[in-house]
């Protein structure tokens, strides 16, 4: 027998044995190890629902983000529920469900619908505090409104418009919804701001249905019907983008003022396609809404109108982008 050869063979066999043994242990653990599933048993103090106009909306996601961070601090179980796409019936039903399931507080966007006000009143009647976020329903019994002062935001836009333009201006307004109160306020604020400036004329208002294609259609219609238009004002987030898409390929240089700071909007501002935009701070809205609800439950006195900041953002503001847009929609 060859001794060194045997030695090699034995050590090889032994290594092979160790290899299979440890693999056996590893796969054995993988196969048989049973973890008792632990559902998060964290105790929450309150159960709130946040009901946006549209669930998968970047703007509302920011509101949710703010609300979530505040919820985490305050032991609140937060549910973010609502229609997949803007739909009043579904929105109302979600609120009604929340009422039926006796949550501790409701945060919702105000909806222009005859059934909305009775529903909010019902909730308040049943002792569920309601906070309207972003869009108010001032005629209802809602406890608090948290959000942009839409009238003021429109007014800021108007002032910026006056500041930025010279000569006769014919403005076409693209608005999300003609009958949505916050949109109406934005338009109203704008109108009031330019009221005394004789060189600025509003030629028409068209509805975009808060979609980009709607905005494109509205812009197209405006230009077609009023070829002498020189400027556009978009009152909801996607309106500005829709306007740019139509106007981009035309020779004429239009003045465009938009709403909100979507990444695409910021890009267009940087390129000079959009001249200015109104900045809102949805994260703060979420935070403030949660805090307002907790105060309401604790019986503290709360200011029924809690406005978050609004600012105008122009190309030159990119220099101090971070300070200007902190907490804003990015």
């Amino acid at each position, binding site marked *: 027998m060859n001794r060194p050869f045997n030695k090699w063979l034995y050590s090889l066999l032994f290594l092979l044995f160790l290899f299979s043994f440890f693999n*056996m242990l590893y*796969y054995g653990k993988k196969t*048989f190890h049973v973890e008792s599933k632990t*559902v998060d048993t964290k105790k929450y103090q309150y159960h709130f629902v946040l009901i946006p106009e549209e669930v998968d909306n970047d703007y509302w996601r920011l509101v949710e983000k703010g609300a979530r961070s505040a919820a985490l601090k305050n032991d609140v179980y937060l549910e973010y529920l609502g229609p997949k796409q803007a739909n009043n019936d579904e929105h109302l*039903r979600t609120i009604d469900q929340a009422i*039926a399931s*006796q949550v501790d507080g409701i945060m919702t966007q105000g909806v222009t619908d005859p059934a909305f006000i009775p529903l909010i009143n019902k909730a308040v009647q049943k002792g569920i505090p309601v906070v309207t976020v972003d869009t108010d329903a001032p005629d209802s019994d809602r406890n608090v409104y948290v959000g942009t002062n839409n009238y003021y935001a429109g007014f800021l836009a108007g002032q910026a418009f006056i500041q930025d333009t010279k000569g006769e201006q014919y403005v076409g307004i693209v608005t999300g919804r003609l009958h949505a109160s916050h949109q109406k306020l934005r338009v109203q604020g704008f109108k009031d701001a330019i009221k005394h400036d004789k060189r600025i004329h509003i030629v028409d208002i068209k509805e975009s249905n808060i979609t980009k294609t709607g905005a494109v259609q509205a812009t197209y219609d405006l230009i077609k019907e009023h070829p002498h238009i020189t400027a556009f004002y978009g009152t909801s987030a996607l309106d500005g983008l829709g306007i740019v898409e139509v106007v981009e390929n035309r020779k004429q240089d239009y003045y465009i003022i938009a709403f909100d700071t979507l990444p695409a909007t910021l890009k267009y501002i940087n390129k000079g396609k959009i001249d200015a935009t109104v900045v809102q701070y949805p994260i703060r809205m979420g935070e403030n809404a949660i805090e307002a609800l907790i105060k309401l439950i604790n019986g503290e006195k709360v200011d029924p109108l809690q406005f978050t900041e609004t600012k105008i953002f122009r190309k030159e503001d990119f220099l101090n982008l971070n300070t200007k847009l902190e907490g804003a929609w990015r």
Partner: protein
Amino acid sequence: MTSIRSKLIFYFFTFILLFHVVSISIYISTQHFMKQYQEGFDRFLLLNDISQTSFKLYEKVNGYVVEKNETFFNEFHQTKQGLISKKEALEKVHPWIEKEELNKYLNMIETFILECEMTMGFVIRGDIEQYTNHLQEAKNIAYYIQETTLSLIDIELTDYQSFNVEMEERKKAFKSFMIYLFSTTVLLAVFFALWFSYGINKPIQVLFQAAKEVSAGKLDGDDVIISSNDELKHLGQAFNNMRQNIRKLIEEIKKKSELDRLLKELELKHLQNQINPHFLFNTLNTISRMAYLENANVTSRLIESVSSLLRHSLRDIKKSTTLREEVNVVKEYFYIQKTRFADRISFQVHIEKHCLDTKIPSLTIQPLVENAFIHGVEGKEEGGIIRLSIYETKEHVVVEVYDNGVGMSEVQVQALLKEENDFSAHTGHSTGIGIQNVIRRLKLFYQTEDVVQIFSSPNEGTTIYLLLPKEGNT
């Protein structure tokens, strides 16, 4: 001591343990997953049941509103109890989703029951406006319950998907596990087999080699050393003992056969001399009597001595005799030699009588005396002395044969004692037996090397001591 049996038992238990661990693991995990599956399925059924019961309850309320029938009222209460008990059952179920989500669902059911009751109450009161409101509310909530149920079932199904994925992964892991379990056990078995067979084979090889040596006649090999701590070790020890015993036995046999050979040699010499001696013996007796009748007394006595010397030398050499007889022979011999040499040599005898019963091989002392005569004093012109003394010491009966003849060098003495000379070539002895033959026989008879001591130096004479062990002392 670990026996081969306990090794085997250990070997089997290792495998049995391994397989049992595996099967128990399989049992436990299967049990766990079956339970999880069953729980999930039960929840499905419960949720579905709640949703259906809610609608049934609504139907009862609606029926009562439309028909205001007592049976509907009773059925309403029954269904309501059913719903409440199901709700309680759901509360007790192991939480699988956020508690808040479940609470929401439970609250919804609660609100639903409340609305239904309110409707019933207002119907009884006849308040149409209120009961239609609440009925509508109840209907809405029934739908919400259905929706929520569906979404809960959806969550459950999503869980199932991940459960399924997990099971799939486990299945794959199980396959790998089986492969590695297989190779591990095979290798383990190989190791056990190698270890086991090596443990048996090596000692057997060693034993086999040793046995081969023994059968080839080589008995003085090294002891077999077996390191394994089992029966084979004992086998090796037993083998070593056996070999040692055989070695001893063979040595004893060798000694015995040598004694036999010496005796046979003497016998042969006797036989050679037997024809003449018997005739001679008879003739000598006749001559002795004739000499006596003719009044030649000295001659008669001399012939008698020769005759008795001859008779003694014809004795059976194998038989031992007593010191007395040996001494008598020596005396006869002395008588003959005195007659022959007259005053040239003096023969002296000092004997302690009580020592004479000591047993001794026959034909021992006379050859020594004759040897002293032939090699010591025969050549002396006068003053030669040969002395035989027998006396007792603490342990021995000492036979001392002294002569004052030519003596020997130390080398010669040693040669005598070591039996280096060819002792058969002695001539001139009356019995034909040389000193070395005597020494050998004495050694073999008493089984000791120290039976003979010789002190001698040239021209100073020689003393031979026979140290015969006292009887009972050997």
